[in-house]
């Protein structure tokens, strides 16, 4: 299998490390709002490892999905069959998300800034965009109402920018208490999980800071992909590599064709 060439020597792809880092961050979590692709694989990996009681919630109206195959979209019929509850989107957004029952939401976007604000609307100006991106979907209200937000994004200089072209989804806005002061109920972004390193916002400014490097990644490689001088936590840790069990689950159970977990630029 050419897509798994990189696995043959026992190594792993950056995407696999990213999935594993996200899954580990979900330890003990009860409810996660999931997108397709990497977040979906990460959540299912967590369910089989560190978060056995994790319930998967999809904005399509599904609670407690147990997909029997890798979902092709957040509305895959395999998310419905065998789920605990399937309801209208009105009920899902009102009673689960807005009520505050979602512990962690996994989100991504085209651009992120130092305060964890996200752009998934446009590159260029809003009225005459150079690139028209998908838009919010549920991201804006998910980031506002979920208790905590984890971002999963490939670390790329064009994505980690000094200034967003558009703020689709609020993070910590201009930092410090500016999010709280607007009365946003959710606590905001906690982690940015990338293919090279892990970041959090555990400082008074609520500014993104490097907390953990993945094995073999240098500080310079990280800095090169970020459009501002990124802070570092006082103590940097190194992420431990995927365990054989984690890799087995990803490669055999969760993404046997390597659609999302093979290495790719984006």
């Amino acid at each position, binding site marked *: 299998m050419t897509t798994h060439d990189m696995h043959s020597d026992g190594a792993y792809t950056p995407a696999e490390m990213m999935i594993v880092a996200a899954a580990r961050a979900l330890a003990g979590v009860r409810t996660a709002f999931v997108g*397709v*692709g990497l977040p979906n694989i990460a959540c299912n990996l967590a369910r089989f490892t560190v978060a056995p009681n994790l319930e998967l919630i999809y*904005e*399509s*109206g*599904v609670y407690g999905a147990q997909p029997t195959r890798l*979902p*092709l*979209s*957040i*509305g*895959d*019929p395999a998310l*419905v*069959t*065998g789920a605990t509850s*399937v*309801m*209208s*989107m*009105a009920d899902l*957004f009102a009673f689960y*998300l*807005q009520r505050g029952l979602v512990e962690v939401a996994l989100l991504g976007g085209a651009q992120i800034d130092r305060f964890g*604000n996200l752009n998934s*609307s446009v590159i260029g100006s*809003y*009225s005459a*965009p*150079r*690139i*028209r*991106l*998908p*838009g*919010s*979907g*549920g*991201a*804006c*209200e998910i980031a*506002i*109402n979920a208790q905590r937000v984890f971002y999963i994004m490939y670390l790329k200089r064009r994505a980690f920018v000094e200034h967003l072209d*558009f*703020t*689709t*989804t*609020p993070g910590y*806005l201009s930092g410090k208490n500016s*999010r709280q002061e*607007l*009365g*946003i*109920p959710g606590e905001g972004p906690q982690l940015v999980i990338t293919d090279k390193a892990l970041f959090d916002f555990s400082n008074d400014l609520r500014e993104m800071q490097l907390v953990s490097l993945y094995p073999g990644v240098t500080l310079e490689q990280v800095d090169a992909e970020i459009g501002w001088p990124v802070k570092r936590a006082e103590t940097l840790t190194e992420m431990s590599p995927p365990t054989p069990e984690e890799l087995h689950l990803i490669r055999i159970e969760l993404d046997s064709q390597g659609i999302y977990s093979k290495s790719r630029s984006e």
Partner: protein
Amino acid sequence: MDDKRRSLREAIAEYVRDGVSVAIEGFTAFICFAAGHEIIRQGRRNLTLIRMTPDLIYDQMVAAGVARKLVFSYLGNPGVGSLHCLRRALEKGMPAPLEFEEYSHYGMVGRYIAGASRLPFFPLRSYIGSDMPTVNTNIKFIESPYDHEMIAVVPPLNPDVAIIHAQRADKQGNTQLWGLLGMQKEVAFAAHKVIVVVEEIVEEAVIRADPNRTLIPGLIVDAVVQVPFGAHPSYVQGYYDRDNSFYLEWDVISRDPHRTQSWLDEWVYSVADHAAYVRKLGTDRLERLTPGHAPSSAVEYGAYQ
């Protein structure tokens, strides 16, 4: 009671007139491609197309030139990537400029709810700190009279026509749907006219045997149309799977305006109706989309005499 069965051609001709607003809804499921294609075939123009996730069907409809405006909340080929025809229209005004109005998902759901329940607005916890309200002044904030907190509101949305695909209905239009319920009930009650397209027309007794499953009453339905595989390449829970190969194929076709037009020629303009489209797909392809068996159990409602 009225027999509301119509052919899709009749239903589209009667209700989807030039210039109206149309919502073909269903969240990544139950997307009525049959209706979209019929609208293209009938050469409608200047439509306002409303849909949370425009998906391939609105990409095709915009490429075919039926639309003046788009109202949406997520513009993507789900699980695949971009909607290239829509991007060309929005980024380059090709083949023609396209007006648009953009919300978040819950904002769109809220607009349908307000429309369906004759409310002047729907309040929701969203948009705070986002740039969306600055580019769409329909999104406002009002103060709660209880705690003086500010909360976002969106206005009602009442499409001229809603088109809903479902598993089954009776000939009066009483419609049952299971799987992803999405926003179909809300948009149907919000719309001025409702066309229901189903895989099967069933006896009224089938509907009445499970009244909790009835999402849309015939009362608000103007036409009920039987079109098997009418949601292909989208899916219908329990009936067929999404034809993902086409979603991948469209990503290639739609990058090229000429290939796009050739595809429309071959699969829309040159086929008489959806039955012909289904024949052209071939039974092998459709058989591959048939799911295995996973029935619900029956529940007891009880006969009370």
